[in-house]
């Protein structure tokens, strides 16, 4: 568990795989298990990570229960779809966000490309 970013990612992985909302204590256990280092995380660290994720909108907190329980706001697949939509997709201003290696071409153009390379 190196950086805060990696800890956030590990936390989301646990929440995405969990079938029910988890408390900070549950998460700490799962993270320590997944980390495999045997080193215990402090509950305050887990709470910090959770509140950061909540602020970013990735996690929702149920304040009714004691202790508070957390769940992923959106599934992993939906987030992945959002990401890939920006990368591949039709978002009109996407190249302001990222510079992609190659755009996509149609089947016939792909065929022309292969010919171009084959003559070499």
């Amino acid at each position, binding site marked *: 568990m190196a950086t805060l970013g990696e800890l956030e990612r590990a936390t989301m992985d646990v929440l995405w795989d969990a079938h029910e909302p988890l408390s900070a204590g549950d998460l700490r256990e799962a993270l320590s298990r997944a980390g495999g280092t045997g080193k215990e995380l402090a509950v305050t660290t887990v709470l910090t990570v959770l509140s950061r994720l909540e602020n970013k909108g*990735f996690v929702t907190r149920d304040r009714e229960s004691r202790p508070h329980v957390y769940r992923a706001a959106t599934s992993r697949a939906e987030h992945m779809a959002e990401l890939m939509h920006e990368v591949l997709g039709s978002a009109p201003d996407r190249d302001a*966000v990222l510079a*992609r290696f190659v755009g*996509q*071409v149609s089947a016939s153009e792909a065929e022309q490309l292969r010919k*171009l390379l084959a003559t070499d």
Partner: protein
Amino acid sequence: MLLTASLLAALAVALAWPVPIVLARATWTSAAPGVALLLWQAIALAGGLSMIGALLTYGLIPFGDRLIGALVAFFAAIAEGALPSGANFFQMFALSGAVLLGVHLLLNLAMTFVRASRQRSRHRQLVGLLSAPMPERPGTRILDSAAPVAYCLPGAPRSMTVLSAGLLELLDDEQLRAVVAHERAHVNQRHHLVLLAFRAWRSALPWFPIASRAQDAVGVLVEMLADDRARREVDDDVLAQAVALVASADDRTDGEPAIGRRDGIAAASAASVGRRVARLVERRSPLALPARIAVGAAAVALVAGPTVLLILPTFD
């Protein structure tokens, strides 16, 4: 100042319409993407300068013979609340136009910048959660997706290169090195800033070739520049294969959920892929040095021309 205004207006019209159309069709740009990019930037800058300058110098005619003096007189007139006797309606209209156009261009630039940073930071968060760092390559992350994609995400604190699992599967080590070198070049050469400026330019003046053609052309040129940087590290053929493989491989990935692919953007991007591969395979030599110097000089002259016209004492 009428002569100055007319010259600037003529330049503005030339740069807004015929010049970009001719340059967008030119083929020498593939042989010298660096100076071609410089020329596009000069056209955009000189175009904006001459548009605003023409309106400004025409509108300031009643206030004096030189720009600076006329501006001072203009503000004095505003303070007094009275126009000089020679001022007519058209001149005041031109002055308002100059101010509005200037504000419009700057606002568009600012808004495009803010929007892009916001999207980029959201994208960065998603990538952070959905991708794993690549231990042997710092600053590179692997996205668990079957579609073969590679891109870079510029920005603070450090830029990120994102490769997908599908890409690692598709390319061999050497081809992968080409892709990474290409993406790194985008970041190092700050291509995102150039693209951003031209995006703002287009959103400000969507109907003019100076903006629309420019944005498309600049998009292709930065790809060629990044290719040229990658060619220093890998063989031309390896890079060409990597480009062609990634571009044509999208056909075979059907695992991803409905993503609007190859509509709209397809035509421009397909043409650019073809041009990129062709220049790698045909091994065309770069534009001769004198020609490149000439293009560079033309770019400098384009920006210097309207600037001098605006600052210099007028001759009429």
